[in-house]
């Protein structure tokens, strides 16, 4: 789990700092390249369903992940490619999932919105706005019950803060003192609706006060700032069981999903303004200023491109799931026995499709 293991919960400040930042830069570039390729593959009809890209949000994704420990748990919404990659899920497994293949990190069952890697502590990849909040809150409760000194990082968008699930989850987390940080990625829009048109209190981090919970906001395009804030809040959560809200201000370059041109509700000017302070460029410029070599950066960028190209090759080579596995994994192993007497009179074709293939095997 390269990403998570090599990262301390705080960006070191001594000599190793540059190396640490270069590693983060590589993750950011990898995510950007991956998203760009995903869009290309989607348009080539090799990826289907809803496909949400995070281009422009890399500093938030990588900054937060850089502050997580291997023992911490990650939960995200449907815009989750970057989180999976930053958590160390191999690009091959992510791309294979987008292709709906057997070697995908969700065995081809989940697709773009439902990535998961339990070994790496990444618990999805969820598609219902704010639906992941109660689940993530429960993961934090389990950490406490199991006496683990770890925290949950739960990502959500600016639009999700208007769902009732946000209110109920944060109240439970604060009331029960659960080790969880709710990361609100404020990318200015929920589909075509701006934050101001959706939230009566547009300073989203302030809503934490309704639960006597700490909330703060950072520049989501500033890698160091995000990493520092996330580190502080995650440590607080782990060690003092104090939940918090971290709002990061960033911007989504592409449409809501690949199907959305993303121009009906914002101007090209607005987009290019934000691209002027592109987190990748910001980070690159600082790295150069702080002594990183142009060559070094170029080789990093080249490695990222290579990794993405390799991921596409891998995904193409991976076989489709076998048809007789359609119902596998719907229930736990051994469940076929429980369903043995359900066959008669069921809908036509059901036996072959569901029962013969095995439900829990």
């Amino acid at each position, binding site marked *: 789990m390269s990403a998570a293991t090599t990262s301390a919960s705080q960006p070191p400040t001594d000599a190793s700092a540059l190396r640490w930042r270069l590693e983060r830069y590589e993750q950011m570039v990898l995510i950007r390249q991956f998203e760009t390729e995903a869009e290309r593959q989607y348009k080539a009809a090799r990826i*289907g369903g809803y496909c949400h890209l995070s281009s422009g949000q890399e500093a938030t994704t990588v900054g937060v992940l850089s502050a997580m420990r291997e023992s911490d748990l990650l939960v995200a919404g449907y815009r989750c490619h970057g989180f999976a990659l930053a958590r160390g899920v191999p690009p091959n497994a992510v791309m294979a999932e987008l292709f*709906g293949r057997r070697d995908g990190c969700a065995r081809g069952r989940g697709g773009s919105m439902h990535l998961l890697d339990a070994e790496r502590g990444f618990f999805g990849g*969820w598609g219902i706005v704010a639906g992941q909040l109660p689940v993530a809150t429960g993961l934090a409760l389990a950490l406490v019950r199991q006496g683990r000194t770890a925290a949950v990082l739960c990502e959500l968008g600016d639009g999700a803060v208007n769902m*009732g699930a946000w209110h109920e989850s944060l109240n439970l987390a604060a009331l029960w003192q659960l080790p969880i940080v709710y990361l609100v990625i404020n990318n200015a829009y929920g589909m075509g609706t701006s934050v101001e048109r959706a939230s009566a209190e547009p300073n989203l981090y302030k809503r934490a006060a309704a639960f006597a919970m700490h909330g703060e906001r950072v520049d989501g395009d500033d890698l160091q700032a995000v990493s520092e804030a996330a580190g502080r809040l995650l440590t607080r959560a782990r060690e003092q069981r104090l939940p918090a809200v971290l709002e990061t201000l960033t911007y989504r370059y592409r449409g809501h999903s690949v199907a959305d041109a993303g121009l009906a509700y914002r101007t090209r000017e607005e987009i290019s303004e934000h691209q002027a302070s592109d987190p990748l460029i910001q980070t690159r410029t600082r790295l150069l200023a702080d002594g990183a070599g142009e060559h070094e950066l170029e080789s990093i960028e080249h490695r990222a491109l290579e990794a993405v190209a390799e991921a596409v090759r891998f995904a193409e080579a991976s076989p*489709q799931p076998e048809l007789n596995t359609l*119902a596998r994994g719907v229930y736990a192993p051994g469940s076929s026995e429980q369903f043995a007497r359900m066959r008669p009179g069921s*809908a*036509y074709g059901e036996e072959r*499709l569901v029962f013969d293939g095995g439900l829990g095997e």
Partner: protein
Amino acid sequence: MSATVDWPTETMTYREALRLALREEMTRDERVFLMGEEVGVFDGSYKVSAGLLAEFGPERVRDTPISEEGFVGAGVGAAMLGERPVIEIMTINFLLVAMDQVVNHAAKVRAMFGGQVGCPLVIRTPNGAGNQLTAQHSQSFDGWFAGTPGLKVLAPSNPADAKGLLKAAIRDDDPVLVIENLPIYKEKGAVSLDPELLTPIGRATVARSGSDVTLVAHSFATVRCLAVADRLSERHDINAEVVDLRSLRPLDVETVAESVVRTNHVVCVEEGWPTYGVTAELAARVQNVCFDDLDAPVERVGLAEVPMPYAKNLELAALPGEDRIEAAVLHTLGAA
């Protein structure tokens, strides 16, 4: 839907027919207004309400935050005071977060308070699967709502009924769920421009007449059945009748029974899970009312009983495709 002499028909998509219904009713009745996520500035996530914000303004085409429970309930309250809210829920899957307002509030208002207050609310939402939208976004809960006294549930399968049923729903004095369908949005058909032409609620229609077997369906399953019917006549010289339910509550059992009495064989098809689904109710009623007319058991075809997988090949296998419907027909006729 009976054609009219005075008004011409025009070929348009299901999506355009729904939009025309909305425009006509909003023009006719000031109390009608739209509410939902992205119905305005974004022109609707599936573009049904495209252009209506420009035409009617933000007070009558109201963009909402992502708060289904909140704005569905707001629709209930507004309807209780005589407004005619038409709420769009992006897909039926998201009604799960608003279930309490639909089932335990909208459906209860009139009866629970002794008939003193009504709730003329319309909720429009598409069901269905087919584009690898995966487990959380590929469902059809049609039967759950159709099984709730106090609600009316409609499910048009073509542009003409899409317009006629949505208009009937908006003019109805009870809460009506209009189930649209993702794959059909782009389908074209002839639609009357008569602003007073409604499709009656509680009336099924024979979409294709035949004599050998009756296929009963609603929404996209009707489209599948019509294709299968052609296939059956071409490949097997089987003459299938297709009954399009159009309404799930009220359910027009008579039209189904009249057909079965003639064909003696019936296959019920739905886009959702058949176990405890819409086809279960159909089978239960048909066997009861046509007991002596059936030459073979009522057969059902529906979505494989699994959370929808993402992989294209698995999704195709799970859907109630034409092959599975055809096989069910051959099976029931073979068993005759």
